[in-house]
């Protein structure tokens, strides 16, 4: 348990140092090995003023960051994962309000991982966007090293 907490603290500490995380204004709500990404609404996240919709790029960045954070949380790696590719499905318009995301590591290999993430606003069952990503992770740490 304390090991999991340490991992959560490591992740929080790392995220605090990442400039794009600060630019987005996102944070991660970590509960053990579970985590929800939170992106509080700000005007600068808008992509289209006419319909007051969140920018697809802001949603994509948030989803990719949430996927990487979840992977960092469950995989025993020292460096942040590197993105191989991502596919983003834009399912609904992102309205001018807070956005949440949860990611699941579908497959954790020695070198690569497949991660799915989904973002929603008022209703969890009505996702705004979904991401499927493949990431390169470093070799696992040797126990006690």
């Amino acid at each position, binding site marked *: 348990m304390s090991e999991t907490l340490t991992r959560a603290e490591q992740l929080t500490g790392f995220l605090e140092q990442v400039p794009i995380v600060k630019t987005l204004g996102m944070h991660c709500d970590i509960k053990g090995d579970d985590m929800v990404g939170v992106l509080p609404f700000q005007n600068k996240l808008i992509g289209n003023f006419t319909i007051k919709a969140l920018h697809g790029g802001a949603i994509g960045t948030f989803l990719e960051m949430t996927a990487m954070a979840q992977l960092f949380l469950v995989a025993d790696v020292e460096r942040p994962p590197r993105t191989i*590719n991502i596919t983003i499905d834009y399912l609904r318009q992102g309205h001018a309000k807070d956005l949440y995301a949860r990611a699941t590591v579908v497959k954790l290999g020695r070198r690569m991982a497949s991660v799915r993430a989904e973002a929603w606003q008022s209703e969890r069952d009505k996702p705004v966007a979904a991401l499927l990503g493949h990431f390169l992770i470093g070799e696992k740490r040797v126990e006690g090293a």
Partner: protein
Amino acid sequence: MGNPMNDLDARIEFMRENMAQMMSVTPWANEMGFEVTRIEKGHIWGVQPFKDHLIGDPETQVIHGGVITTLLDNLCGMSCSTKLKEFRFVATLDLRIDYMRPAESGRDILGEAECYHVTKSVAFCRAWAYHESREKVIATAQGAFAINKPRSNFKKGDQL
């Protein structure tokens, strides 16, 4: 000179004239600080300057992949406006991005997008991000965009 709403050549001319201000009406693009640099029929180019607040890895000081997502998504969407006979708003259906090599810290990223096919309701686009040329690409993207139904009222501040 025709009406940019239904005359493609007139619209491209209008977009070229307003190139410098184009991104200022899009807050998140403005936050990224990228600019449109060249517009041709079905094709658009842009530049994403290196900025410290966009770094995704404090150790390598490399810009976060999401910045490339924003750049290519936005350029793809705009490339549709340089292809459709009548002006329509488009919405991203999906976007796939493959990373070929990491971007280098401290260097601007160039991007280009091509709208290579349109049907009645969908536009298909591909895009590239690189430092120098497409020969040494950082990332490629492929996306489908839903073409919205025509809107009768065209308001001031609407984006082309």
